[in-house]
């Protein structure tokens, strides 16, 4: 069902987010403990990195349908409205 797709995506998002954040936190804690003398910045860095990665992944996942695949061939772009350049570049990157 197409309506369940979104839900699934969010599940993935959350799961991924939890993992990344958790892992980042963990790594941060580890690094903070191990390498950085229990400063909080590695934790926050780690968790921040994790969060950012999760965010990016989620967004990508949610956008996946709209992004063209490498194999897909598309004609002249007719969609001239509301295209944000940053997003266009991000799409190119994620390919």
């Amino acid at each position, binding site marked *: 069902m*197409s309506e369940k797709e*979104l839900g699934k995506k969010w599940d993935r998002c959350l799961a991924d987010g939890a993992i990344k954040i958790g892992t980042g936190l963990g790594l941060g804690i580890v690094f903070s403990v191990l390498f950085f003398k229990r400063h909080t910045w590695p934790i926050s860095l780690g968790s921040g990195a994790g969060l950012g990665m999760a965010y990016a992944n989620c*967004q990508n996942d949610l956008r996946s*349908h*709209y992004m063209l695949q490498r194999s897909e061939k598309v004609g002249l772009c007719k969609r001239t409205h509301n295209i944000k350049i940053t*997003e266009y570049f991000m799409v190119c990157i994620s390919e």
Partner: protein
Amino acid sequence: MLRACLRGANATARTNFRRCRPNNLQQCRHYTAGEPSGGAAKVVAAGLVTVGGGVGGTILYAKWDHKFRATVEKNVPYSDQLLGLALGPPLQDVRSEKQVEVAQPPSMMDKKVKTSKSKSEKKVKEEAAETSPAAPVQSLEDTLFSDEASAEATHIISAMGDAPSVPAPCDTEAAAVKEECAECHHHDDSTVSAAVQPEATAAEAEPLRERPEEEVTARLALQDQQEQDVLAAVSVSLEDSLASSAKATLQAIGAQEAALQAVTRHTLRLKEAMEAEVPPQEKSAQWKDLEVSLADRNSAVDDATAALSKANEALDGLKSVIDESKGLKVSAVRPLVLAAEENLHNMVVDLDKAVTKKQTAESEAKIVSQYSELVNEAKLQFQKEVSSLTPEIQANWKSLTGKLSPDDLNALIAHAHRRIDQLNRELAEQRVREQIHIDSALEQQKLEDQRALEKAVSTSLQHVREEARLDQERKLSELREVMEAEMRTQLRRQAAAHTDHVQDVLKVQEAELKADAEQVLSSKMLEQETRFRQLSQEQLDNFTLDMNTAYARLKGMEEAIDSHVIAEEEARKAHQLWLSVEALSYSLKSADTDSPSMPLEGAAQAVKESCSDNDFALALSSAFPQESLQRGVYSEASLRARFNSLRSLARRVALIDESHNSLYQYFLSYLQAALLFEDKQAAPPTQLSGEDLDPFKLLSYASFCLEHGDLELAAKLVNQLRGEARRVVEDWLTEARLTLETRQVISLLSAYANAVGLGTTQAP
């Protein structure tokens, strides 16, 4: 208030009622106390007066009108007794009594009359009795004539039409105690006397009730029966009495003969005893015999007298029976009666003869006994004299010739001489007186002879008279038979003539009637024939017409049937199509809320089969989407439910599309969904404008449509969603599309099937 008024009214009414009622009672009491029995007594008295008046009036009127009296006596039981008490017996009985007394034969008529009750023909009797006053003398002859002649006589009389007649009423010789006999006798009396004196019985205005024939024949039969019974009884009684009297007479005669014999024997013996000179021993024996014979004679005489009395009794009885049977007046009895009378006469004669013989013998015996007495007396006298003379001589003096002394002898001789002288003197005296005695004796004898002669003459006269009467009766019966035979022959001749005449008349009538009948018959036959021909022709025409019409109808029916067969075939096919389409639409309904319906492949196949010759239906049935065939379709309800859950999702991703699909946008979209409130359902406008393309509006329109069962419009509206919302509802939309498609095909098919079905049921 109404209730209060009612209550008040009731109370007042009750008080008033209570007040009035005692007054009424008092009044009534006062009223009735004064005369408690007056009203009742008055009523009773009035009733009694009415009843008494009614009864008295009835009795007076009955006294005046005898018909009324008869009807009252007939209808009211016990009224006849009352009326008899009040008025005496009904009048016609008294009058007929008088007439009968005038009539000679002292028969049972008196009894009959006195015991008879008034009947309906009483009036007739009265009239008839009045008009035949001189009948009595003839009545005897009439009775002799009446029996068989009566029927014919009455017929003759009725034919003459002079007198009131009843065809063959009961004959006069009915049983004695039967009441009908009285009136019959009277009636017959009257009719026969009318026959003798037709002019005397002038036509009476009295209407006679003619008895019905069955009654007459019944009565005749009854009377015949009665006659037979009477005859039998009489003959039996006669025979009995004859037998008994014959026996008694014979006995008497025998007794008389025996007495005669005894008397003669006794007389002879006496004579012998007196005159014979026999030795003394035999004499005593003789005297003993004599005594015996005397005793015999006495007994015989007694027996004879007893037998004679018995015979006389029997003969009297016979005579009474004969008289009785004579009184019955049954004709068949007469010869018996005659014979009985003759027998009686003979017996009487014989008895008388025997009695006379016995009497003569008795008289002789008397003479002889007198003589013997005289002799005995003389002997005794002589013995007394002898004994007085010679006391020692014994009575048996004839045996003492050797014993007597000469003195005795001389005395005896002297006595004898003296006796002889005396006797001579007596003889001389006797001779002198002889003549006188003889004369007186002769006189006496003459007288006695006269008497005997008279007696003999009278008895013989009686006998002769009896014989003459019997002869007369015999001659009368013979004569009557002859006359009857002659009458019968005359009547037969008359009957023969009548039958001949009737035959002739009948022949003539027959001929006439035959001619008439034949004419009528021929005319009727002709008529019938013409009618028959007409009818048959009509029938034929009708038949031909009917046949033609029937044939035409048959032809029409055949055509109709053929066309019907075709139409039915079409109809059957259409029906089948319709059924398969129905099955298809039903299978559509098999969808549950969350699962699709069964695959429609089978049903579609069935539809295809049932419309194999119809391109349109074939095209339609092959237009099903593959998905619905394989998998089935969702029901509208499930789609609706799904949409409801979809709607919130679509709302949440309303801002997301190709260009806006970052997470931030997602957040914004979610925020918008949380903060924006729109109608749950809003009716979509007929034309969508640019602002209606807002997803929220669209969703509410679609909700509205779905709630109102318009899946198509909802799908159309949902189709207008763009972006992520569109992506989200894509599946739903395809499902909706599938369902719509399938439903469209099925509805088309069913419409087509209905149309085809409707079409086939109508007349082409």
